[in-house]
């Protein structure tokens, strides 16, 4: 521990390092992890500003992502991916059906809001509990197999849940139309609403949709109550995941990933560990599902479709499976593409390139157009391929590479060493 503490300041030359960190652990975290937690906390706190770098009304405002809905999605899918990473990143079990737990959590959440109260706390608790129980059942059966068979089993369960929700269980799930809150729902803990009043989710009276706009000249920043509540939940989820990664339990899960046979020979049954990891990650998915409902009081069966399960796999791999922050970055990346790049249409492009001569403008727009708007899947696919081929460790690895390039010190890899020495001689 002391050894680590002596080396750490050299790696991060931040003067802000709290003196207490040297003494051991903060919140049970090592110094590096604590800094990471602080970093994530700062990201969450300042996201409304960081994500709106362009003044409203300017041509670049298209790329602003700092509006409540998308910020909420960033943190909620961040939670989903963090949970998925506990299973996939640590044990190596690739679940292709995690969206089912998200969906089950959502349905549980909205039923709590229909039957009990519009306060989001019971809804979120119910989402986690119900998703946990469901994942216990699915995990108990699916974990009898490993590898591709496990993936297929989870996929089958998820598609089964989707089909049930879409048609068979229509009275409970609302089928294709999904479930929404109605003014006449029997909320036993709340006073009845007047006919036609729109029910709104709240946290002890704070409306999830309540927003304040801050204006600095041409810039507009939106601070949203629901986003910060979801952000706090994500911070807690992130903290728990760090603790889990660093715990002996986490070590056991890594042992399952590296060599399950060896574990078996040593007389340790990996099943309880993998099942526990599966249930924990199912509960994370349920938490994300509950928060989705709390932020936007509607559930549709599509969120259990296999593409939704595939998406969380992409998020985790894109960000960096097995790393702490990777899944969060990956989910932000994908949601950004889905919501921002998909909305660039032909007329937007024409407006951007209107400074070019007519013929050239058409050519440029014709080249770019297939990759934006409805073509966002194509761009995302290409980027995903590039990441998997060149950065098998995901965006996190990309970040580390960047850091080494810029730092160019003796600690860097050999290729960089030459550059660093060259630079030193020049100085």
């Amino acid at each position, binding site marked *: 521990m002391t050894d680590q503490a002596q080396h750490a300041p050299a790696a991060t030359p931040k003067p802000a390092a709290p003196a207490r960190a040297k003494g051991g652990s903060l919140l049970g975290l090592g110094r590096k992890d604590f800094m990471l937690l602080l970093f994530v906390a700062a990201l969450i706190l300042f996201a409304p500003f960081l994500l709106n770098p362009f003044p409203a009304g300017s041509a670049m405002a298209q790329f602003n992502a700092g509006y409540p809905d998308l910020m909420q999605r960033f943190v909620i899918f961040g939670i989903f991916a963090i949970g998925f990473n506990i299973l996939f990143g640590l044990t190596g079990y690739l679940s292709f059906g995690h969206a089912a737990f998200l969906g089950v959590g959502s349905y549980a959440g909205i039923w709590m809001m229909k039957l009990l109260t519009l306060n989001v706390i019971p809804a979120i608790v119910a989402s986690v509990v119900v998703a946990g129980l469901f994942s216990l059942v699915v995990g108990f059966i699916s974990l009898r197999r490993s590898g591709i068979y496990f993936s297929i089993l989870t996929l089958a369960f998820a598609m089964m849940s989707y089909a049930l929700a879409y*048609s068979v269980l229509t009275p409970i799930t609302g089928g294709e139309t999904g479930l929404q809150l109605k003014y006449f729902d029997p909320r036993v803990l709340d006073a009845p609403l007047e006919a036609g009043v729109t029910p709104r989710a709240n946290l002890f009276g704070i409306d999830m949709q309540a927003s304040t706009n801050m204006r*600095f000249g041409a810039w507009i920043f939106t601070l949203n109550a629901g986003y910060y509540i979801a952000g706090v939940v994500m911070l807690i989820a992130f903290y728990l995941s760090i603790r889990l990664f660093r715990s002996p339990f986490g070590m056991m899960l890594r042992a399952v990933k590296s060599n399950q046979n060896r574990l078996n020979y040593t007389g340790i049954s990996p099943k309880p560990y993998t099942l526990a990891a599966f249930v924990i990650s199912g509960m994370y998915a349920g938490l994300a599902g509950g928060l989705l409902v709390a932020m936007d009081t509607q559930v549709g069966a599509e969120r259990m479709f296999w593409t939704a399960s595939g998406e969380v796999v992409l998020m985790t791999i894109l960000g960096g499976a097995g790393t702490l922050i990777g899944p969060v970055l990956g989910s932000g990346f994908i949601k950004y593409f889905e919501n921002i790049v998909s909305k660039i249409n032909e007329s937007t492009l024409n407006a951007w390139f209107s400074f070019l001569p007519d013929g050239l403008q058409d050519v440029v727009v014709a080249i770019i157009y297939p990759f934006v708007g*409805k073509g966002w899947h194509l761009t995302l696919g290409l980027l995903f391929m590039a990441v998997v081929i060149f950065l098998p460790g995901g965006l996190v690895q990309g970040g580390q590479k960047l850091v080494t390039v810029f730092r160019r010190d003796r600690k860097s890899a050999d290729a960089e060493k030459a550059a660093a020495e060259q630079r030193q001689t020049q100085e």
Partner: protein
Amino acid sequence: MTKSNFTRRGVLKTGATAGAGLAVPTVFTGAVWADGHTGFTNAPQGDTVTLGFNVPQSGPYADEGADELRAFELAVEHLNGEGDGGMLQTFSEKNLDGTGILGKKVAFVTGDTQTKSDAARASARSMIEKDGAIMVSGGSSSGVAVAVQALCQEAGIIFMAGLTHSNDTTGKDKKANGFRHFFNSYMSGAALAPILAAQYGEDRKAYHLTADYNWGYTTQEAVQSSTEAMGWETVNSVLTPLTQTDFSSYIAPVLQSDADILVLNHYGGNMVNSLTNAVQFGLRDREVNGKKFEIVVPLYSELMARGAGENIAGILGSQNWDWKLENELGERYSGTNAFVKSFGEKYGFPPSQAAHTCYVQTLLYADAVTRAGSFNPCAVAEALEGFEFDGLGNGPTLYRADDHQCFKDVVVVRGKESPENEFDLVEIVEVTPADQVTYEPDHPQFAGGSLGECNPGA
């Protein structure tokens, strides 16, 4: 021991930070707030107004979505005084003069619903929260329409539904801020039944195959009750999974039954596949009880007809509108030709009914704003409620105040035996007048919802 080290730089830094901090509160007050709101969500600032067009650009209904988007672009062009003005010339109201809406130039943003309610809501929320859209339109499935309509109600903006046919949109899920021009399952049933009885006789036995989701249920219910009122008997009704692509196992039992009519309550790819299977099984050449076996498809669309190819020949169904209406049935459907002309000139082919309803919805919204003199959703809703208009291609039409549904004639069509080109696949059999498809607002098929109060938002 304390050691204070004030440096010049440190003092300056602290001073600057404190100064900025003190200045912050003044930034929030005064003029910056005053122009932000005038009592409703996304009140248009400056000289433009933004509309949100939320259509499926990927997924099973991407073709419909693309056509809807074309129509929206055309409508915006006409509102801004570009192009030939299209239906603005034939519209019974003459408030729109090509200067945008209330003198503000119309801008628009587009989004991809992916035909998923979650994605559609995310896309609509970004239009409202980020782009400041004052109205959202589009959609080509009822699940999406219901989800986005509820969102618009919550956010306090107007939703002008695109292609959505389920009864629920203006039935149990109706909302004060939502309006539908397209017709619905009940109207399909009511329009088809008399013509089915006239064409195929009143003593028929029908077998229903129904897509297993909300739209399928409401359509099946509507067609069944309307045809049973005409004297038909319903032999059986079977639900088919939405993801089904091979319907052989569902068609085979039809051959075993004594049914002489097959009703396919399917849409999109489902319908293309089930119809193809039915024709392959020789149902069209079959005779039961001495009568020729017939197939009925309650909701027709040009794009589906194209997918089903020659199998569509001779099969009856209903449509909201058809681009040949004015040519074949005359003056009553004026506006049709004007729209087909400007659409055709811009894109090179005739518009689908999805394109038509989206174009009309945009014009109706612009007109309602102009008549109300305000973008306030409550004022707009009031202007649309009980509004009677003509010249938009469907003949005289009423926007009923009780449920925000349009009432107009329904077109009954039949697949052409020998189509001349890929855009002329159906022929108009008859038009069922509006009063035959009108129902009470509290009709059992629509019961269980409430419009609620109109919501102008923040």
